[in-house]
C-alpha cells in the first residue's frame, strides 16, 4: 500500500496509507485531511478538491482531460503547474511517498 503525504494549507502533514485504485480525494476524506471539501463527491463538477502535486508525478500521470483542465482554472486557490482535481487521480504504486499539497483557499 502506497503512502501519501498530504500537506494541509497550514503546513501540517498527514501521512496516510492509501489503497490502490481509490482516488486521492477519497483517500483524503477517509483520513479527514482538512481543505478537501469535494462537494460533488468525485464528479469533477465542483473544483473543491484541488491539490498540487510534484511536477515529476504530473508527467507520469498523463494528460488531464479537457473538462478537468477547464475546471482547474476556476478552483478557489490559484492554479499551479502541479494542480489537479484530487478526485480525478487514482492512487497507484507510482504515487508512493509523494507529497500532495492542499493549497490555501
Amino acid at each position, binding site marked *: 500500500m502506497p503512502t501519501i503525504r498530504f500537506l494541509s494549507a497550514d503546513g501540517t502533514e498527514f501521512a496516510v496509507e492509501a489503497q490502490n485504485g481509490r482516488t486521492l480525494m477519497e483517500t483524503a*476524506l477517509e483520513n479527514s485531511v482538512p481543505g478537501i*471539501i469535494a*462537494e*460533488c*463527491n*468525485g*464528479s469533477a*463538477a*465542483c*473544483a*473543491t478538491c484541488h491539490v498540487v502535486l510534484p511536477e515529476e508525478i504530473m508527467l507520469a500521470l498523463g494528460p488531464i482531460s479537457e*473538462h478537468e483542465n*477547464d*475546471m482547474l*482554472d*476556476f478552483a478557489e486557490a490559484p492554479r499551479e503547474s502541479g494542480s489537479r482535481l484530487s478526485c480525478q487521480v487514482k492512487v497507484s504504486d507510482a504515487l508512493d511517498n509523494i507529497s500532495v499539497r492542499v493549497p490555501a*483557499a
Partner: protein
Amino acid sequence: MSEAVKVVDDVAFEELLANPYPVFKRVRDLGPVVKVEAANIMMVTRFDDIMAIERDPETFSSINPQSLLNTVIGPNLMRKDGDDHARERVAMDPSLRPGVVKRCWADSMRAICDDVISQIEHKGEAELFEELAAPIAARALADILGFDGVDWQTMALWSQSLIDGSGNYSHNPEIARKAREAASGVESAVDRMLPHHRDNPNPSMLSSMLQADPAQTVEQIYANIKVAIGGGLNETRDSILTLILGLLQNPDQFARVRAEPSLWGQAFEEAVRWISPIGMYPRRLTRDVEISGTLVRKGEQVGLCVGAANHDDRRFSDPEKFDVFREKKSHLAFGAGSHFCAGTWVSRALVSQIAVPMVFERLHNLRLKDPELVRVRGWVFRGPTHMPVVWDA
C-alpha cells in the same frame, strides 16, 4: 438502539410556503429524520447528514421510474445514478464548464442584461421579478440551450408548467394538461433546432448533446433539455432577486462589495445560502439504514432539505442573517454528490459577475419601493416573487 422517525403533524402547508425556516429549525432540533405530515415527506435537515447521504448514492438513490418527474418529462438524468447518469451529464457538461461560460456565454449574457436593463432604466421604478430577473434568466437559458427564436415568456411558461406538473401530486387535470403542452412545445423546439446544431457544431447544449460520445438519443435530448428548462430558469431568476434583496436590506455590506468588486462572488454564495432557490429534493432508500441513529426502511423516500441545512446553526452562526462576511464555509445550495448542480458555473457568472453588478451600476441609488411590498415564497423552490424598487432615473 435506533430511534423511530418522529412525526410533526401540527404544521400547516401554508406555513411552509410562507416561511419554512422556523419549521426547518424545529424539525432539525427534533431529530435527524422527521416526518412532516403537511408535506407528506420525511425530512432530513442537518448539514452533516445530507453531506453524508450524498456521498452514498448506492443507499440513497435518485432512481425513481415512477416519479411524477419521469411521467411528465420522460426518463431523465435527475432520476438516474452511476454510469447512466454520468453519461448523460457528460453530454451536457461541455456547454456548462466555467471556462466555456467565460469564453462562449459571457458576452451574450452581458448583451441580454444590457438589453433588459435598457428597457426599464428610464422609468425610475420597476417590479424586478417580472421586468428584470425572469427575462434575464429565461433569455440566457434559451441561448445556452441553443433555442433561437423562443421568447422569454414562452421559456418561463414552459419552465413553470413542467415544474408544476412534476409536483402535481393531487393529479389536477389542468396542471397535467399544461405540463403536457409545455413538454410538446419543448419537443417541437428541439425538432426545429436539431438540424441547425447538427450542421453547425457550437457550444450550445443541444449541440453538445449531439456531439456527445455515446451519442444521445432524441428521447434523452428531449428529457434532459426539459430538465434544463424546468431546473435552469427559476434558480437563476430567484438568486438574482435574492442577491439584490440582501444587498438592499444591508447597505453597509453593499458599500463594501461595491468598493471591492472581487467580493461579488462571496456575496452570491451567501445569497443562495440565505434563501436557497431549491429547498428540498428527494432520495429513495435501497436498504434499511440508520441516519444518525434514526432507522429508515428500504423503499422509503426522504426529502433532503438543503434549505434547512443551509440554516443549520450547528454549522452557520446566526443563519437567518444575510452576512456576506460570515466565516467562510461551504453550503448546499447547489446540492452535493454526483447530482451537484450542472448550472452552478453559469449561475455564478451570470448572477454575480454580470447581472447584479450591472443592475447596481445602471440603476442609481436603487432601493426597495416599500419593504412591506416584498414577497418571498415557497419551500421546495423559494425566492422573492414580488419586488418593487425605485431608483433615480
